[in-house]
């Protein structure tokens, strides 16, 4: 009788074995407080080091918006999309949430090695917590954005409430991205060097400070492809709701929802597949 049979006969289970997918999700769900707690406490600890503390959550994006407004608004004064400042700020806000989630996800495993090495829990909670942390930082920024839009005389309406489903869909999409990046980042740490470049390229190509539709008016095929860019979809959706002169199309809702669901499902599966390998010291 082999030792494996002997162990099975007495009902012993292999340690560190990856749980079945449904069990895995249930274990993770049972520990959701951990993901929230980790996000909240990490934010507090990070803010406690600075003198201005949590004010940086508001100050940083304000400074960023001023800089972008200066560069793209004053220096690139010609050929601007209509209603430029609200257009720009909405784009920057959504883009920051997405790029922040990708970056935080990529380092979610490596920056928490202490936790991974001392406690056994579903590792997917780490990228989830990283996105929750971004979300906690971004909600006050959303408030700031709405105030700025009012200052720039955008008409407030009931459709502003539709930002809630947009933020939820975007968060789901970001969960997916963070989980994918977390597995890649844990296995190929070089990704942390490449990611800033990827973020830059996406920033310049996703129509944050120019209108993709206007730029590509002569290339309908290229525009049709670019319309499936999830960053473009989410930003256009938010602009359609918040900024005067832009409209929401059913196509945008459909593609944004599609991206949110597909990325999340693929992300969980992709991350779960490598569950046994996280925390390996090589």
């Amino acid at each position, binding site marked *: 009788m082999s030792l494996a049979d002997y162990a099975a006969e007495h009902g012993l289970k*292999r340690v560190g074995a990856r749980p079945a997918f449904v069990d895995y999700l249930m274990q993770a769900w049972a520990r959701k407080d951990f993901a929230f707690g980790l996000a909240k406490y990490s934010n507090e600890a990070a803010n406690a080091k600075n003198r201005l503390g949590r004010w940086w959550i508001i100050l940083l994006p304000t400074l960023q918006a001023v800089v972008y407004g200066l560069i793209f608004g004053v220096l690139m004064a010609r050929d601007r999309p209509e209603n430029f400042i609200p257009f720009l700020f909405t784009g920057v806000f959504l883009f920051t949430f997405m790029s922040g989630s990708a970056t935080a996800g990529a380092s979610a495993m490596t920056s928490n090695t202490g936790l991974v090495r001392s406690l056994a829990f579903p590792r997917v909670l780490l990228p989830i917590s990283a996105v929750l942390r971004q979300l906690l930082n971004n909600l006050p920024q959303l408030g700031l954005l709405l105030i700025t839009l009012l200052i720039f005389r955008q008409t407030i309406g009931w459709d502003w409430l539709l930002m809630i489903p947009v933020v939820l869909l975007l968060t789901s999409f970001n969960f997916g991205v963070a989980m994918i990046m977390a597995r890649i980042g844990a296995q190929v740490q070089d990704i942390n060097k490449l990611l800033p470049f990827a973020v830059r390229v996406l920033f310049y190509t996703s129509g944050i400070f120019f209108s993709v539709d206007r730029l590509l008016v002569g290339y309908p095929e290229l525009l049709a492809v670019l319309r499936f860019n999830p960053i473009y979809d989410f930003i256009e959706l938010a602009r359609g709701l918040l900024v005067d002169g832009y409209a929401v199309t059913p196509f945008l809702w459909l593609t944004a929802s599609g991206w949110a669901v597909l990325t999340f499902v693929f992300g969980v599966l992709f991350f779960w597949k490598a569950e046994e390998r996280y925390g390996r010291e090589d």
Partner: protein
Amino acid sequence: MAAKTKRKAAELKPVVVVDDAHITYKVFSSGRRATRAAAGGGLFSRKMGLREVHAIKGLSFTIYEGESVGIIGSNGSGKSSLMRAIAGLTPLSKGAIYSSARPTLLGVGAVMLPNLSGEKNIILGGLALGFSKKQIEADVEKITDFAGLQEFIDLPMRTYSSGMSARLRFSIAASRDHEILIVDEALAVGDMEFRKRSEARMREMRDNAGNLFLVSHSMQSILDTCNRVIWIEKGELMMDGDPQTVVDAYNKHTGATTND
């Protein structure tokens, strides 16, 4: 071996079965020895400075209910690697380890979240293990008292001395009864008073039908707490059996004359 296993199986229930466990680490090394080894490899060759360390070389043993196992061996003999593998935190490269419950590892070094206070580490640690907020809030005070850190519990853990953080980590783990608890030299940095208190707690846990693995360089701790000792050297099993016999053989091997 098979006959022995069968005879024991009739009387005892196995708790942990280690079946031909191998652990290899792939490490990028640097320095003269590594560069020489890599001579001939190109910049992108995987050979460059990559060394395989075979930490555990095919260990097999079975632990039965109620046993407290001391693990001894010199530094770098693979004790901690084996314990981390039993806890399911380090994947095996070959073989398998089976257990009746998820073992809890209490190791050295790894402070969970150095920038958070001791109290928040207690809370997050409990939440990660799947306890509810209510259960943990009740535990926080008990854990703080056992650790004797009332004054410092709201300071970030990076400000703790190694002894203080070892106290806290042990207290967190010891606040609950575990079916299988692995204590990996976690008490080495504690002072004598805390060591006595924690050893008493470990014996209590053992008597409550828990299984204990204790890694220590203090033979006295091992003799006081364990009823079976496994001696590992360079990733291989040297000896396994009655504590006094194994410790005597180990002392003879290292040339030590006292048990401390």
